[in-house]
């Protein structure tokens, strides 16, 4: 396996230096996270949702992140992207969009933007858990949600496998 240099775009470094919408949100409508400490990657997002012109709209978003620079930048850019969007619009944000907004992530870091989208989709699902599910929200898990879960599971499997070897 050839090693790829972890060359970040200047945008990733800029956001790493000055992330936007950082920190816990006390009055969040919904909170969700993706990843695990074992993966070395967690993105936790906080959304404040209100009705604007009759539509459920994200009026505020913030994040916390445990992970590499790509992870922090993905989470930060996501909170900027969703702010002011209806939940329906936010649901359609793809990991590729996040990577593109960051000036292109190195391929080995795609999973960071996949996790960011995973956390967002999880938050949206959670929000509608006790509410009427809107028609646009698919009942079944979408491939992107599955992908985010897969990243988590993959690393956890690796971790458990190694723990067994160690004992």
């Amino acid at each position, binding site marked *: 396996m050839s090693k790829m240099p972890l060359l970040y775009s200047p945008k990733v470094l800029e956001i790493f230096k000055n992330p936007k919408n950082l920190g816990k949100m006390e009055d969040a409508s919904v909170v969700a996270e993706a990843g695990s400490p074992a993966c070395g990657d967690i993105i936790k997002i906080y959304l404040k949702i209100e009705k604007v012109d009759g539509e459920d709209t994200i009026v505020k978003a913030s994040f916390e*992140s*445990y992970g*590499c620079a790509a992870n922090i930048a993905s989470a930060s850019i996501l909170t900027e992207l969703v702010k002011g969007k209806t939940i329906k619009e936010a649901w359609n944000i793809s990991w590729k969009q996040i990577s593109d907004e960051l*000036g292109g992530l190195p391929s080995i870091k795609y999973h960071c933007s996949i996790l960011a989208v995973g956390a967002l989709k999880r938050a949206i699902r959670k929000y509608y858990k006790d509410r009427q599910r809107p028609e646009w929200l698919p009942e079944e898990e979408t491939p992107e949600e599955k992908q985010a879960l897969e990243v988590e599971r993959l*690393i956890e499997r690796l971790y458990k496998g190694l723990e067994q070897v160690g004992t």
Partner: protein
Amino acid sequence: MSVKELLKSHGTPPREVYFDLENSPFVPKEVVEEMLPYFNKYGYGNPAITHKPGWEAYGVLLEAKEFIAKTICAESPEEIVFTHSGTEANNLAVLGIALKNRKRKGKIVVSAIEHLSVTFAAEYSSKLFGHEVAVVPVDEDGFIDPEIFEAYMSKDVFLVSIQTVNHEIGTIQNIKELVKIAKDYNPDVVFHTDAAEAYARLRFSVKDLGVDLVTLSSSKIHGPRGAGALYVRRGIELEPVIRGQISVEKLWPGAENIPAIVGFKKAAELAFDNFEENVKKMKNLRDMLMEGILDRVPDVLVNGPRGNLRAPDNVNVSFLYVEGEALTIELSLRGIYVSSASACTSRMLEPSHVLLAIGRKYEEAHGSILFKISRYHSEEDINYALENIVEAVKRLREISPIKGVKNE
């Protein structure tokens, strides 16, 4: 993606301290100046050719062998074989012996924390020749228990490869004892030790240790990259692992890198001048950095042993609740250059096998940072590093959703 733009965004910090001597050397001016004539003024010929620049090159090659042989108490300069790196020397040791034993079934014994150039070479031998590779576990500080080691010995073991000092966690292994155990079982077993991390920081004698093959590397002692060496005790037979025109070294074809070898020798001379003083200085700075981190940053684990059985230049700690790659970048922005064994920096999404072997959990390995101390560092460097480590860890912990008891 433009590197220039990335570097512009990074900027040049007001002060810079380079601690990443594990991954690339800082080569001091004296060493560079010593090398320069050998590019175009003197000894720039091929040492195997019969003309003046060739003989000059041959002359300095021999001088370098003599000097290095003396520093490890080898019997003859002929026992020093130059390669172009420590990785190559490790490959020559493991695969060279494996090739010699290709027709027999047999076992290679390595530890769980070897450099990957030993681990992967052993695995390759298994794939090519069907040799069995046995991996000896280590304890939580990276030490091999002699009794456990003994349990891995048998008549079919033809090669043992155990590092003198671990490159990540600085564990100093008792090689002499392990050699004795191995040779008691089978006097014909070949014992290789990768001493790239030990050389010029610990005094050792190949005769006293009883080892057959020893790896040394220029880039680990402030020499340039492009030069490594394998000590091959007289009488030990191994086969070359790469093929090509033989120059002086029969075991490593290709033209010798004379300027790098000259730099290697100069770097060794500088390290062995005032050896005790240099080591004492490194130990003081090492302890100052490690104790400073433990005093000032909560929730830190030391990776590797404490005290006299830790290499004088090694500081490796895990900062819990932060991820190592983010920390290397945060520290880089502050002019402190370190490396991490986190999965994110490995490009393979798996943390270091060394940290996992000493029982670190994934989340503990992810926050690991390796500092290599050198005699070129000063107390001011350490103080500057400490101040910035405290702030950098604090900042990343503020971003992190997982927090320790103390932080909540």
